């Protein structure tokens, strides 16, 4: 394996072709190319436009509730012994997760581009809810594609989307999870290119999506970096986030990438373990390939057919990952580790009991990694865990694992 050259900065990517090293790119059907180029042009104009930035900033403050708090999780830290643990409270945002950050940015872009209709894919339903929310707020019709398996295991979010006026279309292809929802959303987009804006929920897909979603989510890391300096007087020793597609993680990580002394850990869904195929740890157990418009680490067989994977957490149940994470993995800047379903479930319970905070199962994976690391660290050391979403949506799933029907 060729080790990519160590860059002077980890924060300059992607290049003009949308590449992070060998990862990223624009692997899409010709029908979509003119749209993607148009999107890139509008994005490049918008990101430096003070008016666009001011509108997004006002919505983030007064609608989404930013900045989100950086909270010292004293109860959990005391229980574990060792490092001081801070939670970045993205669960307190409007709609209950970090997804709103990206949706507000992209809906403003859709408005700028004069699009008339919003489509989105969703796994756990958090991005679907956030998309339906901004569509309602700005008066757009919205169609959300969601795998049939996820529709069943995330029924509260399905109902929320419907209340918000979105149409939820279940996708039964494959295992009926996020991958299949994304295929179907792309098919919709290819068919309705004229008037439709595809609001991708994670930092993946064809360029410029990975960069754009990262920029909208980087508010997490930018705030956290400032907040920890205010509260602790220094940068953290470790930052941790769960990685499915990887938008909450890249949002936290990106502003810290050039802080050499900050150890950065991304947590993949280890499912039932990496020995079999019942996991979603694409960077630990997959290899580079091309899917959904970008080259990245993928779970696949020897013939290049994509595997479905498994995770207890619908939001991590995706066989790929955003291309920038693949590059950060290969450069060694970020460590990616797996957390098993049962470890995440234990962390879910522990956080609920010691902090009075019910975390999303996705975020519980990051907490589980903190549970492993904190006791090995000193009491003067500081860790930030991205609490990317709240766990109300997961109580049915968790109850089921405890043998209860609610």
């Amino acid at each position: 394996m060729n080790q990519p050259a160590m860059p002077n900065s980890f924060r300059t990517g992607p290049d003009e072709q949308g590449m992070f090293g060998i990862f990223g790119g624009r692997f899409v059907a010709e029908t979509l190319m003119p749209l993607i180029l148009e999107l890139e042009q509008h994005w490049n104009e918008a990101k430096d436009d003070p008016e666009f930035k001011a509108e997004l900033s006002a919505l983030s403050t007064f609608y989404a509730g930013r900045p989100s708090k950086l909270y010292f999780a004293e109860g959990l830290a005391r229980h574990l012994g060792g490092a001081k643990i801070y939670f970045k409270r993205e669960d307190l945002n409007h709609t209950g997760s970090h997804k709103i950050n990206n949706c507000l940015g992209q809906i403003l872009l859709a408005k700028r581009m004069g699009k008339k209709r919003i489509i989105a894919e969703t796994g756990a339903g958090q991005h679907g809810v956030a998309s339906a929310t901004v569509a309602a707020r700005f008066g757009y019709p919205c169609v959300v594609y969601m795998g049939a398996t996820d529709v069943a295991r995330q029924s509260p979010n399905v109902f929320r989307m419907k209340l918000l006026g979105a149409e939820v279309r279940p996708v039964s292809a494959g295992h009926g999870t996020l991958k299949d929802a994304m295929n179907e959303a792309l098919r919709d987009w290819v068919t309705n290119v004229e008037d439709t804006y595809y609001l991708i929920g994670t930092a993946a897909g064809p360029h410029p999506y990975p960069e754009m979603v990262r920029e909208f989510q980087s508010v997490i890391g930018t705030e956290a970096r400032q907040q920890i300096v205010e509260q602790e007087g220094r940068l953290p020793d470790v930052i941790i986030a769960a990685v499915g597609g990887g938008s909450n993680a890249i949002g936290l990580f990106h502003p810290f990438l050039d802080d050499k002394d900050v150890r950065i850990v991304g947590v993949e869904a280890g499912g039932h373990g990496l020995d079999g195929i019942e996991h979603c740890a694409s960077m630990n157990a997959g290899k580079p390939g091309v899917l959904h418009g970008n080259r990245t680490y993928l779970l696949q067989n020897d013939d290049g057919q994509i595997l479905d994977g498994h995770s207890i957490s619908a939001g991590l149940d995706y066989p790929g990952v955003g291309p920038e994470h693949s590059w950060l993995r290969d450069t060694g800047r970020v460590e990616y580790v797996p957390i098993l379903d049962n470890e995440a479930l234990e962390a879910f319970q522990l956080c609920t009991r010691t902090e009075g905070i019910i975390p999303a199962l996705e975020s519980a994976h990051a907490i589980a990694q903190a549970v492993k690391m904190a006791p090995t660290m000193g009491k003067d050391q500081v860790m930030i865990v991205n609490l990317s979403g709240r766990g109300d949506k997961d109580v049915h799933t968790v109850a089921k694992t405890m043998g209860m029907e609610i």
Partner: protein
Amino acid sequence: MTDTRIDRRMAKLKAESRPALVTYFMGGDPDFDTSLSIMRALPQAGADIIELGMPFSDPMADGPAIQAAGLRALKGGQTLKKTLAMAAAFRKTDDDTPIVLMGYYNPIYIYGVERFLADAKTSGIDGLIVVDLPPEMDEELCIPAIRAGINFIRLATPTTDDKRLPTVLKNTSGFVYYVSMTGITGSALADTDRVAAAVTRIKGHTDLPVCVGFGVKSAEQARTIGACADGVVVGTAIVNAVADVVGAKGEITADPVGAVTTLVSGLAEGVRAARLAAAE
């Protein structure tokens, strides 16, 4: 100008003043042997060029029919290696009919581009259509394919405007595949006047033959499209003819070769009548 079986076939048909019938079927659907029999029957039934589908687990530009065909093929054990073996087996009895492999990039990328091109060449492959490799990604496969003497056939769509057409056509060879509508495979046919106008527009930018696909299902449609294009591509209708004789458990309920032959013969009649109709 390249000199491949595609170029020679297109030149011959131009001399005969009739459009090409380009037939797509899914390699390995529902199993290798049946699929090879279908492939062998295609030229006899009137197919001028064969598009051999490479199954992929996540065909993001295909409709339900081709999605299902790909899954049947994968379930039947088809791999890219077997698809190449199918072409090689076909070549033993037919050295003239051009074969174009059509599919998605990932299986090729995993196979290894250089190894794939070498094996494709020895298997008698003449051209490639890779849906998710736009001109922006030409370094991946298009340029190496041209170097290996294999045509890289690009799709042009209604969203490909005059500004973008030169980019799309730049490294295209063999023919241009005009996708007559935005959407996934198997959708309804676009208005023929608009198709004719689009073909004329593309021909203003290139001397390559222009074949039209997406939505052609009947002999009548083949005749109408054939009147304004150098070739008519039929895919979903053929895939459906196979699907109709495969039962719920994958068992074959009637003769798939016969079903495809009947359909393709009818389409061939339509295509052959196209220029007569245009001359009337």
